[in-house]
């Protein structure tokens, strides 16, 4: 009788252990943050899951600020942000957070001017002036001198910007802050700023929609969005003085130009990057990984995913109109993965 009981108990325990082990194989990761890279992230996580069926990464694009906050609150395993965390934020954080750039993004100026169908060239002073409200008409000399031969009307410029906080705005205002001291002092850079003039559209499609419908308007949208929806946009003058049209090559060139002086924690702004072919309104977007991860299964999964993302994952970028990271940056990041413990 006792033997039988013992046998039953032992086999039950073994059974439970086996069950636990089988379920323990499943690694569920929750992540939250930036909306801009959501399409490429969802592609990556899906492909990674197919290759590693026991790892499920659930990413929700609730916004960069949301990502940072949820990471700090401990409700997600890692976060994502279009703008790097500031020194104050990192100091205030209860635990150390590492930044890993994943893809490159860019903002492009999109416009709708009656009678103008070609590509316009914009100097940085022109853009700053337009968005500050100091340049009010399309035939202002700052704009016409960069576009000889184009018949710009003397109509009022209608400025369109983002109403919701977003990394897209961060990139644009970062660029404008470098282009104009006036902008830097009056408005500054951020995911949400106090726009001196203009209408606010919600999301890329809000801005694009308003530009399309409002005569003589100008707005800024993500390159991915413009490319996917066939929206016409203009060229921007870079630090080397050339007018560059945003595309995957020119955006990667901007990152390559900045790679030499990149800080070890990868928190760098690459707007107005040096280089003849660099597109000036480019930026990284980052994954925010805690430096210490308690759960060994989760830690290994995250580290493995980072390695995969930097090597295999980058192949998928161009298909979705995201620029790849330049080689020097990738090499630095691969080394940095060992910092996650």
């Amino acid at each position, binding site marked *: 009788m006792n033997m039988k009981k013992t046998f039953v108990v032992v086999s039950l325990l073994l059974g439970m252990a086996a069950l636990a082990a089988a379920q323990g194989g499943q690694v569920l990761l929750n992540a939250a943050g930036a909306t801009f890279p959501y399409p490429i992230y969802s592609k990556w996580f899906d492909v990674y899951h197919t290759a590693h069926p026991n790892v499920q990464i659930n990413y929700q694009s*609730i*916004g*960069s*600020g*949301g990502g*940072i*906050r949820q990471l700090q609150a401990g409700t997600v395993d890692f976060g994502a942000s279009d703008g790097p*965390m500031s020194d104050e*934020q990192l100091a205030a954080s209860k635990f150390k957070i590492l930044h890993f750039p994943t893809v490159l993004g860019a903002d492009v100026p999109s416009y709708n001017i009656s009678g103008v169908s070609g590509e316009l060239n914009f100097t940085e002073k022109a853009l700053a002036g337009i968005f500050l409200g100091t340049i009010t008409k399309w035939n202002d000399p700052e704009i016409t001198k960069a576009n000889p031969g184009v018949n710009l009307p003397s109509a009022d410029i*209608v400025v369109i910007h983002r*109403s*919701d*906080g*977003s990394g897209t705005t961060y990139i644009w205002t970062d660029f404008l802050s470098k282009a104009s001291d006036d902008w830097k002092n009056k*408005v*500054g*850079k*951020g*995911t*949400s*700023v*106090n*726009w001196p003039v*203009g*209408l*606010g*559209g*919600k999301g890329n*499609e*809000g801005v694009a*929609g*308003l530009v399309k*419908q*409002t005569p003589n308007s100008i707005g800024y949208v993500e390159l991915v969005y413009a490319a996917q929806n066939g929206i016409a946009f203009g060229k921007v003058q870079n630090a080397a003085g050339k007018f560059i049209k945003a595309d995957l090559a020119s955006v990667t060139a901007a990152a390559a130009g900045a790679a030499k002086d990149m800080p070890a924690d990868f928190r760098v702004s690459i707007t107005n990057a040096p280089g003849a072919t660099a597109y000036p309104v480019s930026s990284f977007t980052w994954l925010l990984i805690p430096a210490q991860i308690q759960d060994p299964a989760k830690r290994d999964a995250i580290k493995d995913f980072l390695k995969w993302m930097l090597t295999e994952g980058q192949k998928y970028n161009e298909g979705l109109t995201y620029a790849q990271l330049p080689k020097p940056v990738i090499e630095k990041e691969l080394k940095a993965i060992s910092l996650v413990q």
Partner: protein
Amino acid sequence: MSAASTTITHEVPPKSGLRAFVDRLRGGDEIAHLITLIASAGIILITSLLVLELWRTSYLSRTKFGWMFFWTKVWDANFDKFGAATFIYGTLVTSAVALVIAVPLGLASAIFLSELAPRWLSDIVSFLIDLLAAVPSVIYGLLGIFIVVPLMRTTLGPALKKVLGFTPLFAGPNYGVGFLTAGIVLAIMVVPFIISVSREVLLSVPREQREAALAMGATRWEATWQVVVPWARTGIMGSVFLALARALGETMAVTMVIGNNPQISASLFAPGYTIASVIANEFTEATGDLYLSALIELGLVLFLMTFILNGLARILILATERGGGRPA
């Protein structure tokens, strides 16, 4: 009753306190009273907890700005200057426009559905209108962008300008987005509540009321407008409450069509901003502690506005109730 069937009556002494209580308890009324009371108290508890939470998390902003928060027009995340004035204005204006459009429209539809339409038609149409309440606000926003905004910019706006352009209400440039457009989209969103509840209330008005009026020679319309509707007055106002509440708190749809420019302008064509919109737009991206706290304080301000508006509306109801209607 004949003497033969009189029952014998004893003097039954009233039960002592405890037994009476237990009996009443078994009777069920006390328990029913208690359960429903707890449910009602629960609502008060939830709301209080909500306000407390808002109060707590808006601490930074409240202590920094004090009362100035109400009339500061600036909203600047980069320089940490926040004020609610433009949003309070936007919320009031859009809700007012929405009600001005939705109440007549909704009441008229409800009257049609309850008084004129045959029952089968009324049921089907009412059912369809209820569906409007289920459309996600994101979709209302998208439809606003694709249909209402172009309509406003190309057709409706210029027409209004031609007729009423001399008034400050319709002055200034017309971009398609703005207070008026937001008000129109809101009106469509809240009209189902008015129609649904008003229709049911009108249907429940006793037939005798209508018949009495008609018997005295009133036309259908006169009977409806002067007898039936006043009888259902409190119920109809209740539906307007529902509509107002929805209009005040609507987040997604308004932000897509209002232009999102924090400013105070007399013109309905001008772009503006509401409290709910700015919270929806900026909350997920807000990283600074003061910034977040200011957004939460805006939520508190909206709560206060709802408090005051509801109070005014209640006073209005009390005043109209005196004038006659269904006895409360």
